[in-house]
C-alpha cells in the first residue's frame, strides 16, 4: 500500500524524523493562506499523487509570495499530472502540500528497504541526492553506502556514524543524522513499511538534517495490524478495478492488451500472460482467482475482466488439483451465464476429473472453445479476436 508525501511526513513527525513545516490544502485560497501562515520568503507547493517523479513532471513549484502560491495552486489542482511513473494519461491532482522554504546546503539520498539476498532491512545512503537511486546504483554503485540491520539488536548508532562520515558530514550534523536514521528505522519497523525512501534528505545551513520528501510503502501482509496506516488509504489514487479485485480477495493487475485472463495461482497466471505474448497476443490483465476457484470468485473475476472495454476474448486457464475440474467447470458455466458473456471464451482445464469438466463445458450451450494445453489455449484466444 502507498500513501501521500504529506501523510508520510505526518508519520515521520510522530517518530521524530525532522520534516519541514507544511499545510495540506485543497483550494487556491487555502494555498494562499497556508503560504502566509508559514511566513517564509519562499514556499513550496507540491502536488500530492502517489507516483514518483513529481518534480520533473512539473508538480512541484517554488512560490515567492502567497499570491504566487495561490496561482500555482490554481494551475495544479485538477490537472492530470504526468510523471515517469503515472502512465500516459497522468494522475489527477486533488490535494496540495504547501511547505516552508529552507536554506539548503546539500542534498542526500536515504532509503530503507528489505535486502532480499540477506533477508535484512538495509539502509542505503548516497551523496547523490535528488537523483534517481536506480540510476546511481547502475552508473556509480560505489557511491551507495549500505548498512544491514541485525533484527536481533535493531539499528545501532555506529551504523549511523559510518554512513554520516561516509557521506562527508561533520560536527553536529553527524549526531543529527544518526538520530534521523534511528527514527527512520523506528518508522519502518513500527508501521511495517516495505520501503521508506527520502530523496532528498537535506543538510541545512545551520547543520540540521531534514526530510524534504517522503515515500512510504507498506507491507500488504501486515495491514491487519496497522489500522492507522489503513486509514490513510486514498482510493482515488488506485486503479478502480484493482481496488474492486481486493474486495473479492482476487489478485488483479490491469494491462494494456485485449485478452482477458483468469487463472488459478500467481505463477500460472503470469505464465499464461507470457504464453499469450509468446503466440502474438496481448494480455489484458493478470488475475489469480486463488486455489479454490469457486463459482462466486469466478463470477467476480468475470465481472472484473469484462469491465475493461478493451477485452475482446477471455482465456480461462485452471489447473484443478484439490478442487476438481467438474466443479470448476460448473462454476465457469454458471458465472458465464450470470454475466451474459458475449466475447469468445477459451477454456483450458487440466487435472482431476478433466474429462467430466470438459463434458460440462460442452453441454453448457455456451460458445466455449476448449483447449488441451496452455499454448493451444493462447493460440485459440489470439485466433478468436482476429
Amino acid at each position, binding site marked *: 500500500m502507498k500513501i501521500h508525501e504529506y501523510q508520510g511526513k505526518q508519520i515521520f513527525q510522530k517518530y521524530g524524523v525532522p520534516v519541514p513545516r507544511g499545510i495540506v490544502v485543497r483550494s487556491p485560497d487555502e494555498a494562499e493562506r497556508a503560504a502566509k501562515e508559514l511566513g517564509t520568503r519562499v514556499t513550496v507547493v507540491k502536488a500530492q499523487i502517489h507516483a514518483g517523479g513529481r518534480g520533473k513532471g512539473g508538480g512541484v513549484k517554488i512560490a515567492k509570495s502567497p499570491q504566487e502560491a495561490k496561482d500555482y495552486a490554481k494551475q495544479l489542482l485538477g490537472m492530470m499530472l504526468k510523471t515517469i511513473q503515472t502512465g500516459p494519461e497522468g494522475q489527477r491532482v486533488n490535494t496540495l502540500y504547501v511547505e516552508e522554504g529552507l536554506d539548503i546546503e546539500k542534498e542526500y539520498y536515504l532509503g530503507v528497504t528489505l535486502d532480499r*539476498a540477506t533477508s535484512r532491512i538495509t539502509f542505503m545512503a548516497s551523496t547523490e541526492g535528488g537523483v534517481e537511486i536506480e540510476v546511481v546504483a547502475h552508473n556509480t554503485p560505489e557511491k551507495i553506502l549500505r548498512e544491514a540491520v541485525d533484527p536481533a539488536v535493531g539499528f545501532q548508532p555506529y551504523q549511523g556514524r559510518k554512513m554520516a562520515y561516509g557521506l562527508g558530514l561533520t560536527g553536529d550534523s553527524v549526531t543529527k543524522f544518526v538520530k534521523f536514521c534511528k527514527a527512520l528505522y523506528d518508522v519502518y519497523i513500527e508501521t511495517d513499511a516495505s520501503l521508506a525512501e527520502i530523496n532528498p534528505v537535506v543538510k541545512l545551513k545551520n547543520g540540521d538534517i531534514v526530510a524534504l520528501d517522503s515515500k512510504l510503502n507498506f*507491507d500488504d501482509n501486515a495491514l491487519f495490524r496497522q489500522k492507522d496506516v489503513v486509514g490513510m488509504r486514498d482510493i482515488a489514487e488506485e486503479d478502480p478495478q484493482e481496488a474492486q479485485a481486493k474486495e473479492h480477495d482476487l*489478485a488483479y493487475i490491469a494491462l494494456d492488451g485485449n485478452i482477458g485472463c483468469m487463472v488459478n495461482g*500467481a*505463477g500460472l497466471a503470469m*505464465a499464461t500472460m507470457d504464453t499469450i505474448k509468446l503466440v502474438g497476443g496481448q494480455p489484458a490483465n493478470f488475475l489469480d482467482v486463488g*486455489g479454490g476457484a469457486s463459482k462466486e470468485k469466478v463470477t467476480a473475476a468475470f465481472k472484473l475482466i469484462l469491465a475493461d472495454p478493451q477485452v475482446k476474448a477471455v482465456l480461462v486457464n485452471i489447473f484443478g*488439483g484439490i478442487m476438481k475440474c467438474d466443479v470448476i467447470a460448473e462454476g465457469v458455466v454458471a458465472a458465464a451465464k450470470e454475466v451474459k458473456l458475449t466475447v469468445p471464451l477459451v477454456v483450458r482445464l487440466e*487435472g482431476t476429473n478433466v474429462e467430466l469438466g470438459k463434458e460440462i463445458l460442452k453441454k453448457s450451450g455456451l460458445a466455449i472453445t476448449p483447449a488441451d494445453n*496452455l499454448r493451444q489455449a493462447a493460440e485459440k484466444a489470439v485466433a478468436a479476436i482476429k
Partner: protein
Amino acid sequence: MSILVGKDTRVVVQGITGSAGSFHAKQCMEYGTQIVAGVTPGKGGQMFEGKVPIFNTVAEAVKQAGANTSVLFVPPPFAADSILESVDAGIGLAITITEGIPVNDMIKVKRVLEGAKTRLIGPNCPGVITPAAKCKIGIMPGHIHRPGKVGIVSKSGTLTYEAVFQVTNLGFGQSTAVGIGGDPVHGTNFIDVLDLFNKDPETEAVIMIGEIGGSAEEEAAAWVKKNMKKPMAGFIAGVSAPPGKRMGHAGAIISGGKGTAGEKIKAMTEAGILMAASPAELGTTLAEVARRANVKLA
C-alpha cells in the same frame, strides 16, 4: 531415496483444527503420510479424526508422538510464532503453507534460524512430496504424482503441478517435488534444494521453476554452472510482467529494473539449463535435456 521427506518422516500439523489444516491433514493421511500429531493450543487431549492425538504444544508432539517434521496451516498473524515454536521444539523440517505472513515477522524468524537445526520450507508454498514413500506434506493434489527420478523445485504452486502432471503423463515420475514459495523472505532456497537433488542417487534430472523478483534464480544459475551434475530443464514466469507491480506473490515484483525474467532466463541458459518457452513444454523440455545427456528417466 528422495530428499527432505521420506519413509521416516513423522508429521505434526500445526493448526490441525482450522479449516485448511483439517482439510489438508485428512488429504495427506489419505495419501499415506504419517501424520502422528496435531497442535492447537487449548485443544490438547482431543483426537483428530479419531486417530491423531492433538497437543497444546509442539514440544509435547515431539516428545510424546515422535514428530520430526511440522507442517503449518496457522493464520498469518500467528504463523511466525508457530514456526519459532517448531524451531524451539527441535523439529528438523518445518513446512509453512500459510500465505500472507508479514515480512518483518519473517525477517526475525530467519534470524533465529541462523545456526538452528531446523530447516524451513516456505512460507506461502504448496509443500513437499515424495511419491515413492507415499509422503505428501502440503496442499498439492497427490494423485497427479508418480514415483520416479525427476526432482522438481519451484516458487509457484500451480506451475509445480503443471510440471508434475506433464512428467507423469510422459510416463516418468518424481523423486521429490519441493515448493519453496514466492515470498521475499523465505527459508530453503533453490540452491539448498538443488544441492540435495545433486547428491540424491534416485534423482536423475531436475526441473527448476522460477519467477520475476529478487535474484535467487541468478544465484542458483551460478551454483548450477559450477556444481550441478544432472541435466536440468527450467522455466521463468513473468516475461510479460510490467515493472513495479506485485504479481500475486509478495516477492514477484520487478523493482528498480532488477529481477526481470530476461536476466534470469539468460543466467539459467548460460548455466546449461534448457529453458521451456511456455509451461506447456516443461515435460518435453525435460525429456529433451535428459535425452541429450543420455539419462534414462523411465
